[in-house]
């Protein structure tokens, strides 16, 4: 993770929207979701799917990609309609746009990977209630041009997928001794079943957060100027 220059808050905003995010190069919009504002390990958004489906790597990746699809799709549409949606009904409108894309993602997954779709079960339609989606629609997509909304959705989605992949790799490897269903730790490994059970989800994410906090603390100490 390389440090990117932080854009100055005093820069003139291109659009006259109150609370609009400051203009930034597209690459920064993309990178922010993956690193500095990672949805899971920094913002702690979308916790439910993060822990519920990460007992297997395949499930974690599928959930991550499905959420990315919904983030990009809803971001584009929220941004397109940003001048037409009345302020009073905006949350309901965003939820409707999100729910439409979730239904699409649900059907596409059921048609292409029926096994994973069955394993995810109700957690697939539950993407609607992931606060990450409504949060990005309200805080970002509704205030910027379509390209930026698209890139931001992609970045947030990839950051989400990355966190889910790391977490599910840790849990599947320790809890079953396998990766993507293939045994990797050998027959002598006694699976640590705790990791694939619900308490293991809280525990693994706790460890991941401790590690992230530690790395960030170390980096902050090394360059106190930032």
């Amino acid at each position, binding site marked *: 993770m390389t440090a990117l220059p932080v854009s100055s808050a005093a820069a003139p905003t291109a659009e006259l929207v109150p609370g609009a995010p400051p203009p930034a190069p597209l690459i920064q919009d993309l990178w922010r979701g993956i690193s500095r504002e990672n949805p899971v390990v920094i913002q*702690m*958004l979308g*916790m*439910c799917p993060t*822990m*519920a489906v990460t007992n297997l790597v395949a499930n974690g990746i599928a959930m991550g990609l499905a959420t990315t699809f919904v983030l990009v799709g809803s971001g584009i549409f929220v941004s397109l309609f940003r001048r037409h949606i009345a302020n009073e009904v905006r*949350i*309901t409108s965003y*939820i*409707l746009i999100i*729910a*439409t894309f*979730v*239904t699409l993602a*649900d*059907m596409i997954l059921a048609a292409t990977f029926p096994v994973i779709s069955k394993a995810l*079960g*109700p957690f697939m*339609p*539950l993407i*609607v*209630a*992931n*606060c990450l989606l*409504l949060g990005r629609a309200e805080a970002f997509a509704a205030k910027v041009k379509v390209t930026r909304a698209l890139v931001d959705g992609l970045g947030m989605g990839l950051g989400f997928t990355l966190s889910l992949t790391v977490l599910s790799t840790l849990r599947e490897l320790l809890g079953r001794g396998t990766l993507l269903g293939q045994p990797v730790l050998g027959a002598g490994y006694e699976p640590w079943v705790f990791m694939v*059970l*619900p*308490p*293991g*989800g*809280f*525990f693994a*994410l*706790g*460890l991941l*957060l*401790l590690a992230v*906090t*530690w790395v960030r*603390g170390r980096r902050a100490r090394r360059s106190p100027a930032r």
Partner: protein
Amino acid sequence: MSNLAWIFVSTLIINNFTLVMFLGLCSFFGVTAKVETAWRLGLANTFVLLLTAVSAWFLNKYVLTHAPFLRTVAFIVVIASGVQIVEMAVKKHFPVLFRQLGIYLPLITTNCAILGLALFQTSRHYNLIEAVVFALGAGLGLTLALSLMASIRERLELAEVPAVARRMGLVLIVASSLSMAFMGFAGMGSGQ
């Protein structure tokens, strides 16, 4: 154990919505800094859960049989309007409580426990009475988990912990042990 009692105990403890099923974690981590707000929000959630259970049952029975692909959209619209009604009622009749809950009242809409309840009740084919009992168990289970976590976190405030663990890391590991305790009741269900 009769069927209804089993549904109630199962959702209240063994399959606790928050600690075992991972539903409603945003409020679990967001509002559990103080016991007072935690149990109040739990009860507000219980009310919305009951409302949702009844409306989802009617939707499933009379409307969604014709258009099952609209299930997610229909449920979320009903929940959003239900929360809106509760918010207006609380604001008018309990202005003090309204100020205490603040932003977390409208955020009940994106609490996945509510939508999760509607989806699980559909996939398990509960009838109206079963659905109401299911919602009651889920709501009280949520209230229980929120209050337990809040009382532990009030104590943690005073504890000396390494700087690294001072943020959410420690809270998650505490949640892990709470979740383990609740899973310990799973033996009760072995007969079912």
